[in-house]
């Protein structure tokens, strides 16, 4: 199983090839492509996606299993996924050390990631894999529905540390199609502790109610995914530490949407008007 799994991890192959081309880890994101190459086909942009599974999971109860303390899979099969995961780690470590002999010794000395990734916890959105990057490249915060509450200490500490101390060059907020959090916020079922967490999504829904109601369910969900990314970017750029880094050293802030049905990332146009930028600086930038 492990050998087969490793064999079908083209991400590693891609990275290994990259490493042969460039001498050092830090050069692994060398420039090479022109700007318009990341526009994705419109078919992807409008590709319908199902929110049914994410919606249904809110109500779905799995068949009750016999209470068990053993670490077996839910279907009772003998594959212990946890043990398998640990075994796969050993293979990964050995393979990575073979392909990049300098990587682990370098990593042990510190990190200099260029990218801060603010994304969703969703299992289908593995940031480092999908960008073909290596350990050491991306500082990561992932929570439910990539929501940034202005006063959330968890994301606030991450942004502060990444921008101020690690001096990342890019801050990326990435939403994704078929987001369960967005689907929940488009519905009206009580979800306990998740309700306060999802409030910002409902606020965005309220502010754009007419637009969302004019769309089909799938289109509305996709629209809310996009609006949510813009709202999180809004919160990121309300932080003085971010505004300072933009002004002083050219920090860039990006909004992306990941299409889980194709695996493709696309960038949103998030350019603000000069007036909006001026207002933002006046209202949010504190003195250094």
């Amino acid at each position, binding site marked *: 199983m492990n050998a087969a799994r490793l064999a079908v991890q083209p991400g590693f192959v891609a990275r290994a090839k990259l490493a042969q081309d460039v001498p050092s880890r830090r050069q692994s994101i060398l420039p090479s492509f022109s700007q318009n190459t990341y526009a994705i086909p419109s078919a992807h942009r409008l590709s319908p996606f199902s929110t049914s599974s994410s919606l249904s999971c809110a109500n779905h109860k799995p068949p009750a299993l016999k209470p068990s303390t053993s670490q077996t899979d839910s279907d009772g099969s003998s594959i212990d996924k946890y043990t398998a995961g640990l075994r796969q780690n050993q293979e990964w470590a050995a393979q990575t050390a073979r392909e990049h002999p300098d990587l682990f010794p370098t990593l042990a000395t510190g990190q200099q990631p260029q990218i801060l990734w603010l994304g969703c916890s969703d299992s289908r959105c593995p940031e480092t894999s999908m960008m073909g990057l290596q350990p050491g490249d991306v500082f990561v915060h992932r929570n439910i529905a990539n929501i940034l509450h202005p006063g959330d200490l968890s994301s606030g500490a991450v942004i502060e540390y990444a921008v101020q101390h690690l001096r990342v060059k890019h801050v990326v907020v990435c939403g994704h199609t078929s987001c369960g959090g967005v689907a929940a916020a488009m519905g009206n079922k009580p979800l306990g502790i998740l309700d306060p967490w999802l409030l910002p999504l409902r606020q965005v829904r309220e502010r754009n109610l007419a637009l969302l109601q004019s769309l089909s369910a799938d289109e509305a969900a996709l629209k809310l995914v996009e609006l949510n990314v813009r709202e999180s970017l809004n919160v990121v750029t309300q932080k003085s530490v971010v505004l300072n880094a933009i002004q002083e*050293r050219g920090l860039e802030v990006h909004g992306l949407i990941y299409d889980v049905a194709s695996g493709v*990332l696309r960038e949103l146009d998030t350019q603000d008007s000069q007036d909006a930028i001026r207002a933002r600086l006046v209202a949010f930038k504190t003195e250094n």
Partner: protein
Amino acid sequence: MSSSAPKKAVDMQKYLKQSLETLFKNNRDWASSKRSTDPAFFDKLADGQAPNYLYIGCSDSRVPANEIMGLEAGEVFVHRNIANLVPNTDLSAMSVINYAVRHLHVKHIIVCGHYNCGGVKAALTPADLGLLNPWLRNIRDVYRLHEKELDQIADEGARYNRLIELNVIESCRNVIKTAAVQQSFQQHGYPIVHGLVFDLHDGLLKDLHVDFEKTLADIKKIYCLSPGSQSEEKE
């Protein structure tokens, strides 16, 4: 810290644009290679997620969850913050645990720390780090809970490493304190909570062998939120 001037502004803008474009190129390569080995790879993901694991780890760039466990897209639900903390009042972490356990029905919750953790290091340092202070204070609290054990370790590096391990164990404990985990385990026999530490020197995961059932029994004296097997699900 923020005083070093950028290279010529125009050069910097060009460099930033190009370095981002490379990510999109990498992404397309990744997507097409996934598709070439399994044409239905993304179709299956588009139908929904059913991960077996919830991974709670550090934001540190050197510890990418999927890579270190050899897991594919769709296999692990991920929450990453500074120093893999699970503060009891953190709505972000609590929401993640709630969603993963009650809606995704994960079978394993993995709390993964790592040696050389900058967050733990900072918490051992007498410095005012502004906004980071209250977050990192959770780690100082872990030290206080295990003060006797830690103070007996003479070697500074060994003490630092042990605090990293104890911080993982305390995060596991905080996960187990939640109603979602207690009730799900009572009803279904899962999830099981595990504590791991990733070693940057060799890329290997070390299992701290957290005894889930014993820990659950221990914390229940004070933190029990699942009275009786017929209990309603409450927060």
